């Protein structure tokens, strides 16, 4: 149904309705120099990418910087996208690599001071505050696969490809990460009583 709608949007005269065009088609248009198609792509993924960055970095300013860097990197790498493959795994691999390099370059080791979110972002991100706190305590090496698999909804194979590790290594890391989260949740629940 979506494919039919997208085809319809492309064959109609007048300005295209970007909302019904699939991401792969938007990338193709953006690669051909259609800046509006790229803007539509950013609009479509910005909430997910920003949320991913907020959950990973626990700092709204840094999260905005990272999200911006991910989209600019996407723009510069549009020509490398193989349009015969699905867009999202490729995009999230780029996002994961950018995140890993971003942490190496800019973000110091997690401290209590930068665990705070502010304003609206804090309210929206903290609808499950115990889990958000537990995630914040998790080592970034465990937090990244957790966010890619459960938050960005990548398959295990795609997470493995994004992080450049084997499938068993990803499974093992996710099991370990969930066990650590489970222990943190138990401790936080205990301390909240």
């Amino acid at each position: 149904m979506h494919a039919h709608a997208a085809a319809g949007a492309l064959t109609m005269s007048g300005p295209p309705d970007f909302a019904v065009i699939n991401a792969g088609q938007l990338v193709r248009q953006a690669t051909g120099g259609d800046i509006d198609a790229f803007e539509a792509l950013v609009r479509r993924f910005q909430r997910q990418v920003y949320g991913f960055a907020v959950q990973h970095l626990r700092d709204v300013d840094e999260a905005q910087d990272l999200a911006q860097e991910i989209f600019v990197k996407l723009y510069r790498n549009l020509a490398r996208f193989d349009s015969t493959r699905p867009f999202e795994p490729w995009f999230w691999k780029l996002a994961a690599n950018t995140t890993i390099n971003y942490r190496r370059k800019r973000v110091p080791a997690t401290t209590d001071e930068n665990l705070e979110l502010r304003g609206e972002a804090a309210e929206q991100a903290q609808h499950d505050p115990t889990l958000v706190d537990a995630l914040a305590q998790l080592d970034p090496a465990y937090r990244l696969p957790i966010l890619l698999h459960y938050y960005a909804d990548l398959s295990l194979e795609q997470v493995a490809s994004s992080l450049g590790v084997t499938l068993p290594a990803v499974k093992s890391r996710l099991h370990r990460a969930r066990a650590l989260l489970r222990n943190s949740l138990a401790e936080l629940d205990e301390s909240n009583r």
Partner: protein
Amino acid sequence: MTDQPGDLACARARVLIEAYVDGDLARTDPDLAARMKVHLADCDDCRKQYQQAVSLPFRLKALRAPQPPPSLLTNVMHAVRPERGESRRAWALLIPEAALVAFIVWYLSGLDGLASVASGTVSDLQVLLNWGVGAAQPPSIPVADVFLLAALIALAITAAYHLAILSRLSAPTLREHRRA
């Protein structure tokens, strides 16, 4: 809390919970999975941990994405648009260079003009050398040669300016556009 219900220590059971929840344990070691089942039926604490482990993936998937600030989209588009605009401006800046080259080519009148300038330059250098050792009068410089020298200097400055622009375009800095 019992220590080893189902012939499995709690510490061992806790390590296996995620593999048990995902079904990996049943695939790789069905006997151990069966002992886990017995253990969880008998141990309240481990059962609570198991329930936590079962709900955790759903809670992670349900984490809400905060609304990004409007400046995110603005800054991204600001960061990518100048690349095209500046490229066009760089090409436009080639116009004065092209005009200078056309002037020089016109002035030199092709290869004959070039040969004439070369021989004139050698002759001027000889006069300068003789003047330097006190064997001749100071050389007189034709006005047209002064124009040519000025054009060459202008060309060199313009080319250097364009190289600086091109080097910035090849390595754009994100920070410049970050918090516009």
